[in-house]
């Protein structure tokens, strides 16, 4: 179909012009989102979007918002955070210093969740968190740590269900319909632009949390990303995925063992 070809060409153009590589993203959802973008942005065709973005770089962030899905919540899937708290952190406790990578961190919901979790468990001060994403606006939002107040009720409920040891309200101040999370929660967080598609390993990690990012990749691309995680993890390091993701279809599956069944938390086997 013509539209499929136009999408192919647009993705190729984005790659050649801006080095954003969506060529191996799961096509069905990219297509839905681009058709939605075309309607919302008022273009007659996908090719018209391509023409515009090639000549007008200010169009790029708007397009990125359609190409990257930003849906997230703090303590999304509370049972995952509960499992980290109860099963993984006891192991991490044995290290004098820790590195944690939150890959595809969106506007920071997952970053603040982990920061609070580590603080509640007394591990925050010996940890460095790397929070990465390819969407610059999401990263900028993550760095400010401000969320609309109407999202806080859900966050609070999730935090409680995750086994939270304090009240979420201890960590933010509310004003003008917004909740601003405490600066100290990001004093040990490094935010940076990093793509699982095109960039390389950058440090040795004890825990990598990459949730609901790889569902947007095709299988070869998932394998690339999992390969990065495999190389990044220390011996016996942990990898947490989204609740509907698994290593089952990955070429790297043998390098990992299931650590918490049902929560998609894996452990790197001995190197």
């Amino acid at each position: 179909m013509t539209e499929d070809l136009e999408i192919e060409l647009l993705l190729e153009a984005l790659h050649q012009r801006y080095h954003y590589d969506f060529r191996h993203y799961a096509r069905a959802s990219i297509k839905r989102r681009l058709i939605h973008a075309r309607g919302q942005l008022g273009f007659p065709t996908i090719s018209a979007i391509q023409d515009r973005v090639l000549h007008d770089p200010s169009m790029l962030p708007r397009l990125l918002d359609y190409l990257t899905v930003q849906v997230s919540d703090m303590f999304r899937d509370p049972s995952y955070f509960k499992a980290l708290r109860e099963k993984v952190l006891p192991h991490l406790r044995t290290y004098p210093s820790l590195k944690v990578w939150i890959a595809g961190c969106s506007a920071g919901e997952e970053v603040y969740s982990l920061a609070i979790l580590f603080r509640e468990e007394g591990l925050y001060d010996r940890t460095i968190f790397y929070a990465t994403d390819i969407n610059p606006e999401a990263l900028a939002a993550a760095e400010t740590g401000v969320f609309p107040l109407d999202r806080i009720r859900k966050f609070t409920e999730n935090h409680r269900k995750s086994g939270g040891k304090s009240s979420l309200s201890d960590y933010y101040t509310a004003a003008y319909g917004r909740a601003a999370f405490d600066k100290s929660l990001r004093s040990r967080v490094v935010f940076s632009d990093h793509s699982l598609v095109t960039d390389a390993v950058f440090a040795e990690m004890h825990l990598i949390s990459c949730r609901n990012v790889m569902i947007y990749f095709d299988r070869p691309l998932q394998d690339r990303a999992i390969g990065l995680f495999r190389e990044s993890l220390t011996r016996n390091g942990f990898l947490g995925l989204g609740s509907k993701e698994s290593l089952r279809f990955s070429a790297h599956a043998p390098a990992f063992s299931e650590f918490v069944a049902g929560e998609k938390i894996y452990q790197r086997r001995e190197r």
Partner: protein
Amino acid sequence: MTETPIKAVAIGASAGAVQALLAILPALPARFSLPILVVVHVPPDRDNALAPLLQSKCRIAVKEAEDKEPIEGGAIYLAPSDYHLLVETQRTLALSTDELVNYSRPSIDALFESAADAYGPELVGVILTGANHDGAAGLKAVKDAGGVAIVEDPTGAYATAMPLAALEACPSAITMNIDAIASYLSSLGPA
């Protein structure tokens, strides 16, 4: 009804879904050979109890769809709660947490439109009972791609809004009551 051999079935249902599915899916023969992709609107944050329930009554395998899973015949794949279920053109399943479509995630439109892309005329789309408009655009996409569009007869449906909306978007869809849908699907089985 059509000359093209059918390769897959997509079903969407909302309010009243469980009763309707229990009237259709258990009727399928054990040697039913097509994949069935199902979106039911279920509240998020709720463990999906539907798969075990259906499995206890059905003769073919029932499972929650997994991301990147190859689609196999003779199995019923349910969209997990809070994820859209999509079909890739290589006929594998993909999940996504894109925004709600028609206030729903999973969305019937999202499944049907991607399945219509992947299967073209080899797809049957079935819209069952429901109190919203999800699935109407999807069913039209199925029809436009040359597939077979079926809508539960609104007069017998538990909730009529969804079948009516589907018929409005896709007037050439065939209406059938639940029993007729069950026997039609059963007849597609062993190709």
